[in-house]
């Protein structure tokens, strides 16, 4: 039961800007940029749409590598690129509106890059409860 055909094109990171520019020039709309971490590899999907035809460009990157920003081509991409930086710790270079990690301020830095993030301070609570009992 497929509603929409799923099109993915794996591209090299170096070719990203060229491919995105092609999309822009042929009249595509930027739907989203989304990141996911699978093993040690970050997978970044750039989704585009034109007249209900939905397409994706996919690049792969690893820890410490930089990804170029596409905000010169799609002005609105800053919101996704800052999000990727804040949640995954992937460095995106040359964003037009760079929040420098302050778009989404989280308790844990780059939470999606850390394994098994658990909430902080369950210990503290126990001691606090003990204290009240003592009193």
């Amino acid at each position, binding site marked *: 039961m497929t509603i929409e055909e799923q099109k993915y094109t794996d591209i090299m990171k170096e070719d990203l800007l060229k491919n995105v520019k092609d999309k822009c020039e042929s009249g595509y709309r930027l739907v989203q940029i989304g990141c996911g971490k699978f093993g040690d590899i970050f997978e970044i999907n750039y989704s585009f749409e034109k007249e209900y035809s939905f397409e994706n460009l996919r690049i792969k990157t690893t820890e410490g590598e930089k990804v170029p920003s596409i905000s010169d081509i799609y002005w609105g991409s800053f919101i996704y690129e800052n999000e990727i930086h804040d949640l995954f710790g992937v460095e995106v270079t040359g964003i037009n509106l760079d929040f420098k990690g302050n778009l989404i301020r989280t308790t844990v830095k780059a939470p999606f890059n850390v394994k098994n993030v658990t909430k*902080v301070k369950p210990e503290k609570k126990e001691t606090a409860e003990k204290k009240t009992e003592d009193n």
Partner: protein
Amino acid sequence: MSYLTKSPWIIHYDASSCNGCDIEVLACLTPLYDVERFGIINTGNPKHADIFVVTGSVNEQNKEVIKNIYNQMPKPNVVVGVGICACSGGVFRECYNVSGGVGELIPVDVYVPGCAARPEQIIDGIVKALGILDKKYKDSKKGGDFK
């Protein structure tokens, strides 16, 4: 209801709630439930408010905001935590950015559970809070402390 003779005003703050409880708090103020008939008005100014209604759970970002609002409110005041997230964190308690219910930060007088809390429950909670507010007010007249 032999509660306050004056009109209690509420201030509402959304602390990382999903909106469900927020819109139900707002629904209390609109025609079907209409708490304005009790003289309850939603104000945006903490210094005008007697009741602090918090929806959603606390995180690092909004900690300061909640404390700020609470400290600016004239005493005596009451705090009502609306929704399960304000009570304990609810389904989101395991999220990395949620540190728990509002009770961890400021003293809460009435908890209204539910996901989302229904307007009837919220009104019930506010009415309970009015009783506590009245008691606090009387205590303060006797020279007691506001807590």
